[in-house]
């Protein structure tokens, strides 16, 4: 019972890190990016290749995955994404689905279609059990504990940057109303490029962390696209607490649903999402007064 909750929290944290970049870009530029999973896949593949073929230690791979995805993200933002912001949503959906298709086929071409296996370092394998003799047994995989720790640190860091730094207040101003923000002298384009880079970088980091838990193969961007979008749609785009809550909810519901009713699998998650979206179409957390 508690083990399930623990796994769900780990899963949810991972989804949050993967999706948070998407939330910010969607809130900032009102851009529906279905190719976000491709950055996560890139991070995952960078880690696998560095670890398996070049023997780079796991902890060094994580920042490298972040940097690689961020670099590719900023490159694509400058060249391809920029002309898309003003286009209608249908164009954005088509464009980003096209990018995701290309990413899937390229990964297939360069890496092969098989599932990549990740060799974790020894200190991350194994499992600790708490309250072993009581009904509330809590089994914690060390790797999941590691994921929770990393993601929690990142979340606190992000929250700090957003709420207490100058860049954070610029970002929030741009999300609320890009026109007014640029009128106040904030260079929205630069803010956006930086955010896009960090967002893709975080997705890459999430992909690297999640390669072992979620599985990594070329269909990753399409398989998890739905989950990222659920986090964004349910959580709303105006803060990061909303997506965090949505991601945790999704993670717990998914793990519990798959454990208790294995045949219905993802049914619970989708039903929950539709119910929430009919109830609150703009997401769970909407700040009043912001421009939607």
């Amino acid at each position, binding site marked *: 019972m508690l083990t399930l909750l623990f796994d769900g929290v780990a899963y949810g944290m991972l989804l949050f890190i993967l999706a948070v970049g998407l939330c910010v870009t969607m809130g900032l530029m009102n851009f529906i990016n279905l190719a976000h999973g491709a950055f996560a896949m890139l991070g995952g593949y960078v880690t696998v290749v560095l670890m398996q073929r070049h023997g780079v230690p796991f902890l060094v791979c994580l920042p490298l995955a972040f940097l690689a995805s961020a670099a590719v993200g900023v490159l694509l933002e400058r060249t391809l994404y920029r002309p898309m912001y003003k286009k209608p949503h249908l164009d954005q959906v088509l*464009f980003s689905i096209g*990018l*995701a298709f*290309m990413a899937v086929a390229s990964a297939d071409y360069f890496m092969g279609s098989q599932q990549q296996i990740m060799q974790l370092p020894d200190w991350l394998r194994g499992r600790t059990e708490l309250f072993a003799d009581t009904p509330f047994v809590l089994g914690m995989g060390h790797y999941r504990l590691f994921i929770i720790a990393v993601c929690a640190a990142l979340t606190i860091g992000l929250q700090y940057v957003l709420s207490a730094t100058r860049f954070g207040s610029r970002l929030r101003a741009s999300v609320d109303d890009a026109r007014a923000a640029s009128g106040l002298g904030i260079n929205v384009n630069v803010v956006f490029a930086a955010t896009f880079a960090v967002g893709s970088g975080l997705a890459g980091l999430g992909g690297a962390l999640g390669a072992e838990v979620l599985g990594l193969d070329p269909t990753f961007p399409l398989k998890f696209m739905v989950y990222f979008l659920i986090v964004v749609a349910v959580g709303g785009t105006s803060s990061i607490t909303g997506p965090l809550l949505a991601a945790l909810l999704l993670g717990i519901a998914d793990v519990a649903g798959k454990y208790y009713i294995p045949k219905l699998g993802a049914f619970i998650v*989708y039903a929950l999402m*539709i119910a929430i*979206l009919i109830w609150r179409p703009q997401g769970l957390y909407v700040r009043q007064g912001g421009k939607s």
Partner: protein
Amino acid sequence: MNAQTSLLHTARWQSLEFVFWALAFASPWVLAQHALIINEIAIVALFAVSLDLVLGYTGIVSLGHAAFLGFGAYSAALFAKHIHPDPLLGLAVGMSAATLLGAVCSLSIMRGSDLTRLMVTLGTALILLELANKFSDLTGGADGLQGVIMGPLLGRFEFDLMGQTSAWYSLAVLWVLFVLARRLVHAPLGATLKAIRDNRLRAMAIGIPVTARLVVVYTVAAGIAGAAGALMAQTTGFASLDVFAMDRSADVMLMLVIGGVGWLYGGIAGAVAFKLMYDVIANITPQYWTFWMGLFLVVLVLVGRERLIRPWHWFSTSARRGGAS
């Protein structure tokens, strides 16, 4: 030319349209060896026309239109297997089932932004996929629903292996429903739909009942998609889980965009172009054809889909873009 005659003029049947349909109906006979692919094209064209009503005329971005296709397919297949093998009855059953589902689902697309709609429609299709997978004793689960044997069409024409009967059957259904859709979009109802697409707030302000119109168009489109699904199940004698898959919804959206949204022939033209393109690319690189499809999409959007496909229609979308901002 006064306003009334000019409005009527755009709604009138052009001579080119007659030529087009004559060619379409002649095709299974002229290209008898390609009758199966003609049948397939007619079915996806019907599906694309259905999405065009929702996406092109009303502006609802839906990534889950396959829900209705799949629902129609399974209803028709189950009806043929367990109750009665007559194709037309099965078609009616598939259509009415999908229409009902559409009426229920139209509640979910009333509110929210494009993203919310995208997610809700996608979620609906995924839920149906999960359900079809779960109730495997009824639907056959991942193996698909097999052993659907259709009776002869109108009690006379057997479905043959060559697919000529199927092709004519699908073309006839496509034609009937196309005429219906064409009538619908040229009627005052269609004009209000376009008004809702261009600017929902203003449409509401001049007294168009937006919610009711959305329900109507979504239900009708669901019924047409259900007909496409029923045709698919009947002419292949098979229904599998992949009718609900997201690829279907994405493919049909792509077809519509290739042909041009907000134009009923766009769905048909797109279906023809898509199927031919798919055949060509899949012959060259069977494994990596998604890459070229993706590249095509990206280039298409970057260049501007109006300019690439219908240079003579660019002004209608520029008006929409002005309204949407």
